[in-house]
């Protein structure tokens, strides 16, 4: 399935060029600082979660780290199922073996994200480095992405918000989900949930870099994708379920 230039990349590239051109026609752009360059297609961010060694307490700490980092879950009026939930603890039991597994579930950052396919306005988007985001500037709140996501990863903001985090604008009537903490990884840091786990039960890194710890580990141990049958090639992988 390798394509030299797929449709989505083409649209992304052309719109970027058009965007630059339309601004440049008005005045001159100052050049960007070299170390703050754009996300690169040479990378693909991913996460490996080893549920064999990840404790339930650690999953809880991942959830609260995410809430604290992005400020969700403190909505006043929304009911439990209306409140946003970017990451949650899910407990499953194998029907045959009765083995119980707990895992953190969030946006899986698919390579072929159904949410991006169905979004009418290109608000659901995937960065070149594989991070799937909602561009709230374009989101009209149609919720089609929530219908399409196989992971129940997306939330709709059901009420007015205030006191948002500076790095995480959020607002009523739009859809949101795990951003893989892009604001952190763009600065060379780890996502908040990953940083909250002190063991190496959760590894974050570049899947395209053969020498990254995550790639090396993935080559060595058994791992799986949730709903691998859908062929979405998720960026978040699990070991132990």
């Amino acid at each position: 399935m390798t394509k030299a230039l797929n449709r989505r990349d083409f649209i992304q590239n052309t719109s970027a060029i058009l965007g630059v051109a339309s601004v440049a026609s008005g005045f001159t752009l100052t050049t960007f600082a070299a170390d703050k360059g754009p996300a690169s297609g040479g990378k693909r961010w991913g996460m490996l979660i080893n549920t064999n060694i990840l404790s339930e307490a650690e999953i809880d700490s991942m959830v609260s780290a995410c809430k604290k980092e992005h400020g969700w879950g403190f909505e006043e009026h929304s009911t439990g199922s209306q409140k946003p939930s970017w990451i949650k603890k899910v407990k499953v039991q194998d029907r045959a073996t009765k083995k119980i597994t707990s895992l953190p579930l969030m946006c899986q950052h698919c390579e072929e994200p159904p949410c991006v396919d169905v979004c009418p306005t290109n608000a659901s988007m995937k960065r070149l480095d594989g991070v799937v985001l909602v561009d709230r500037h374009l989101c009209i709140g149609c919720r089609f992405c929530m219908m399409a996501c196989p992971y129940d990863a997306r939330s709709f903001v059901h009420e007015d918000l205030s006191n948002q985090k500076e790095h995480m604008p959020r607002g009523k009537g739009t859809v949101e989900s795990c951003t893989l903490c892009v604001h952190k990884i763009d600065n060379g840091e780890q996502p908040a949930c990953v940083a909250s786990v002190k063991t190496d039960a959760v590894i974050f890194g570049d899947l395209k870099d053969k020498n990254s710890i995550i790639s090396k580990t993935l080559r060595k141990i058994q791992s799986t994708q949730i709903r691998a049958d859908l062929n979405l090639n998720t960026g978040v992988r699990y070991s132990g379920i």
Partner: protein
Amino acid sequence: MNKISKVRYQQVDGSGTGFYVLVALLSVLIVVALGAVYFMEHNGHYVTGMSNRIVWGTPHVFAIFLIVAASGALNVASISSVFQKKMYKPLSRLSGLVSLALLAGGLMILVLDLGRPDRLIVAMTEYNFKSIFAWNIILYNGFFVIVGVYLWMMFERRMNKFSSKVGLLALTWRLILTTGTGSIFGFLVSRQAYDAVIMAPMFIIMSFAFGLAFFILILLASYKWTERDLGDAIMNRLGNLLGVFIAAVIYFVAIYHLGNLYITENTGVEDFLLFDGEIYSQLFWYVQIILGGLVPIALIYSPVTRGNRMTLGLASVLVIIGGIAQIYVIIIGGQAYPMEMFPGMDIISGYGGIASYIPSIAEIFLGVGGIAVALITIVFFVKFLPFLPESLSDEVADPHHNR
């Protein structure tokens, strides 16, 4: 004598008390709906029954129902100009009007239920061409243009000769449109209740039945209230057609569920929809199948009630109620059942279970308001433009009726 020349179209008088009562009633419904929209948009969707599990609620049920019915309401015009059935020709104008009005009502609901309806302009300027939703935006807009032109061809005598060509285009366009509407659900691979290609043709058949039911009711009401002649020839023909469409819908529903039952991984969702789903199973059997399917067929074909105006009207009302129930089961029931995220495993906590949904009164007001918008549009157009033939007596409709 040229029998077409006998059809004379005439505006509805629309100066009596009845007319103003009707307009006032519909206006109240619309104002209430706008109030409901303000309430929902001002507070946010937390005041509705919707949640992150049931993301599309009652407004979508009404919206999809009206959009599906809109496509089917054009059937009468298509039969006349594409398939050259002369008898339906006098009804073509009304058919196009009902179709446009229902679509407008449905789209209004859809737009006003967005999280950010103020950004409608974004939906019109930013297109993701891989999105079925984006295709639908184009299909809906195109439908307005094409049916508008189609009506012009029918109204303007010089243009009459093109009406069958434009009619063919309109027919093709609306089949694609309903395919698109059905595909919104049919292509959702993640959800057990939806992932089925049969959704698209099933929606087309549903559109035939719902659209015709609306059309029959509007025809009956407008001829009764304006005291114009409406012959049995045409009504019996429309009644028979409705019966066939209802039976076809039941057939497709049966195939859809049987096909799902055959696939073991989908027996869970089928058990839910058909048997254990409480409100959804009840709506399915009692309202969709019995009230909206079997009873209307009996009313239309039973020798006792056959050919009776009142029973045909009742059958049409039941088809509409059954249709709304059907879309409710598809949209809400399909979301209430959890996604099969971990095949071979039971989810103990964190996700799963049947999502609960109780429609809020505001959502229902918005849905009913959409229907009111469609109806008031029809009322005004038949008052100001000659949409309705002066008479649809058997003589006018089908001179060879008794020969």
